[in-house]
């Protein structure tokens, strides 16, 4: 193992987007995207956390994972909501966080904005495509 290598990122703020596309427990993608988002908060970057396709189920209220013996991590999304609040309230930090659900994915699954464990912006796919094109880094799972 070589020594730790670090890059100087001071003063650089980029636009990160995290695209959640998968249901929460069938594969590990949802959990590991969540872990990546939480770590990135320390770097004070712009972040859009997006839920599309079955990814919208990740933040559905009332998850009960006992029968599948999986850790219910849906409450952890509350930390993302807190990070967003901090970013909104702190004028000293140039950092914008958005939590977005794609409207078509939500409606196709019979869900509404108040079915989610956190407050979200519901945005149609054509507008989401524009937001996506404005990003500098897109990480999906």
């Amino acid at each position, binding site marked *: *193992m*070589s020594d*730790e*290598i*670090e*890059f*100087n*990122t001071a003063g*650089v703020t*980029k636009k*990160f987007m995290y695209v959640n596309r998968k249901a929460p427990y069938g594969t*590990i*993608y949802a959990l*590991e995207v969540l*872990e*990546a988002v939480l*770590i*990135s908060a*320390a*770097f004070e*970057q712009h972040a859009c956390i997006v839920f599309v396709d079955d990814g919208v189920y990740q933040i559905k209220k009332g998850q009960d994972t006992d029968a599948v013996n999986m850790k219910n991590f849906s409450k952890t999304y509350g930390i993302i909501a807190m990070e967003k609040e901090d970013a909104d309230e702190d004028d000293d930090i140039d950092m914008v966080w958005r939590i977005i659900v794609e409207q078509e994915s939500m409606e196709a699954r019979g869900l509404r904005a108040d079915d989610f464990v956190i407050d979200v912006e519901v945005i149609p796919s054509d507008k989401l495509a524009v937001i996506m094109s404005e990003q*500098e*880094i*897109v*990480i*999906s*799972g």
Partner: protein
Amino acid sequence: MKFGILVNEGPFTHQASDSAYHFVSAAIEKGHQVMRVFFYYDGVNNANKLSAPQADDRDLVKLWGKLATQHNVDLVVCIAAALRRGIVEENLADGFRISGLGQLTEVGIAADRLVVFGD
């Protein structure tokens, strides 16, 4: 151009690791800089030195290691993803190091482009 690379799928199961390897090799050959390759999700299995593919198959684990030695490419395995998949210092292949997810965000900020390989 300065590239960061994210590898999201395991070797052999999925072509993403091969594509990433070929991309990195070609980028270096063309004179670009690859600042870091970050291995996440099942991508951490690229760093398992116990991997033993058949003799007539490509050995991605060794190929990555060779790339790291020849071109000083920083190969970083996510510690959280690695530990739950049994990748630890004892079976970490040559050329790789284990570090935190912050190293992914960091290379995203520092590089001109972060290129993602996976589904």
